[in-house]
């Protein structure tokens, strides 16, 4: 029973992860790369290094995350380690939800 419960939890977690990642990916693709082509963005791509976002763009992303995921991004959390790629954002949201 324990292993079935663990499997269900893992699967829910994976689903959440996938849907968070897809939501963020699609948001970035649609609003900053202006394309639906999934190959235009790797989830590990740095938004700043690749010129995907400028510093006002990151403010828009923060508004979006707060709106979409019901979180509050503190000033001290506005760092590239949390927000500079799809992967970083997914991990950041995961931490915020814990």
């Amino acid at each position: 029973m324990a292993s079935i419960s663990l499997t269900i939890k893992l699967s829910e977690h994976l689903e959440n992860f996938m849907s968070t990642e897809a939501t963020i990916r699609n948001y970035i693709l649609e609003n900053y790369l202006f394309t639906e082509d999934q190959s235009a963005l790797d989830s590990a791509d740095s938004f700043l290094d690749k010129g995907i976002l400028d510093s006002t763009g990151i403010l828009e992303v923060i508004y979006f995350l707060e709106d979409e995921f019901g979180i509050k991004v503190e000033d001290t959390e506005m760092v590239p380690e949390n927000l500079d790629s799809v992967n970083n954002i997914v991990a950041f949201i995961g931490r915020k939800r814990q």
Partner: protein
Amino acid sequence: MCGIAGILNLKDGTPPSRSELEGMIHAVHHRGPDGYGYYCHDRVGLAHARLSIIDLAGGDQPIHNEDQSVQVVFNGEIFNYVELTVQLKQQGHRFYTHSDTEVIVHLYEEYAEKFVDHLNGQFAIALWDSTRQKLILARDRTGIRPLFTVETGGRLYFASEVKSLFAHPAIPRQINLTALQEVFTFWTTLPPHSLFESVEVVPPGHLMVIENGVKRLSRYWDWTYPNEQIDQHKSVAEWSEELKALMIDSVRLQLRSDVPVGAYLSGGLDSSVLTSLIKNFTDTPLRTFSIGFEDEEFDESGFQKDLVDYLGTNHTHVLCKRSDIGTAFPRVISHTESAIVRTAPTPLMLLSGAVREAGYKVVLTGEGADEVFGGYDIFKEAKVRRFWSHAPDSEWRPLILQRLYPYLKHSPTTSGAFSKRFFQQGMEHLDKPYFAHIPRWATTQRIMQFFSDEARAAVKPIAFDAINRILPAEIDAWKSLNRDQYIEANTLLSGYLLSSQGDRVAMANSIEGRYPFLDHRVIEFAATLPSRYKIMGLNEKYMLKQTMQGLIPESIRNRSKQPYRAPDSQSFFDGETPLEYVAYLLSEERIRKAGYYNPKTVNLLLKKCARGKALGFADNMAFVGILSSMLVDELFIEQATIES
């Protein structure tokens, strides 16, 4: 102020006809609604549309010398014509008018091509010397008055505006994609480019001379700075005294007119300086005009009111709504004849309309003070970035960035570590003369992502070093602030502020703008100021503020600069619905037909802007840049007839 046009046969051919000239000059009727004049002879034709300001009865052009061998048409003003007339009469010249135009032909007789060195003014001149069969086109030092040329079919065509050239059937119409990329980098095309293939600009401070069918271009003036500051020991009081005397004289000269002169009043330092000098040092009745916005982020009405109360001026205030900008934008682009990345020229066109309605033809405006005296945020930003670069690992040095842009609702300095990354862009190019401009140009170039595959394939992408084409060899030896000033003066000022946001939207309503800060004596004086007297710490235009102590309200003298801006993409939607012409021009079908952009990406941008989600500069500049270029395509390429 006027419009000019003309044709020169570069080799034997059919002489330019009166009807050809009429077609061209009628297209700029708005520049000169008070009458037309023509000169046709053998291989040359000159045309003039007049806005009468000096010598109302006798100043009709073309104007000639004593034996009529030299003919001139001219758009602009020669402010020192009174002194020049006295001097030329002493040299034996006979004048048949009281106009400023006539000094040009007599100066030419005295000094040949050097005549232009004697002019203090703003001008685009076409002078024909029939004896030498020589045409001279001359443009003022800083590019206040426009002048375009096209060479085709063995002829040189020239005019104040592109629409005059396009009125002639021989001139091809096509957008130059390299020039469009320049707008989407530097905010302006770089000389000699206009936005159109085959149409070139006579660059500011240049003469174009065509003699015996051979064309040569030469520079007679440039913004230049000493390698070492001239006098480091002169006191602030001494500098201030000299500057005050010079500014009073510049304003006095620029008030010369046979019609009443008004002044723009923005609520900032520069227009406050001008209005207070008019009030305190001349007997010209002060009449002022200002623009305000419903959006608090852009509005400066409070400061404008402070100054109106302080000076007791007869004042007109125009309130500009977002919908006014959306509605007027197509007319603005019909006058700018270029793509633009901001809507800011639009309210100024509405303001010049109010000036016209009040019965005025001439206004003084504060443009140029930021370039001359060191007023721009970009100069301060570069100062901080250079300071930071001395210790790149410092945690506290970049914190000073937070003092920049306090007036922005969505400031690039508020996103903590991201701001640092943003302003770190181009740090490796510290030695480049365009170091200061890299963050701005990088943000603007984001528009390029909307280009279609066909457009990308058609032209080579331009890099920042395209600017090197217009930079002088000695720039590397100048102080860093002077380098920043030079680039700003030769891109944003001449190519955008004085044209799209200056001459073109003023002349749309037959209004002449005058720019006392751009008197070349003021520019040359300020060039010798030590950099610390331009920006003291992060206090911009320090010397100008010191000079005006006691002459303007302290609230205005001590306020931080707020650049003039206007609402951008949100002006083009009613709720989430785009205005009809916007929906048409940005539709997939129309975008595909024009070929410059990818219809799908433009559609996504349109949707984002419609939802009000375009908060930053990049999206707003992309939206305005794409829409304005599509309007250029519609008005100048697609439609055969042009609004005149």
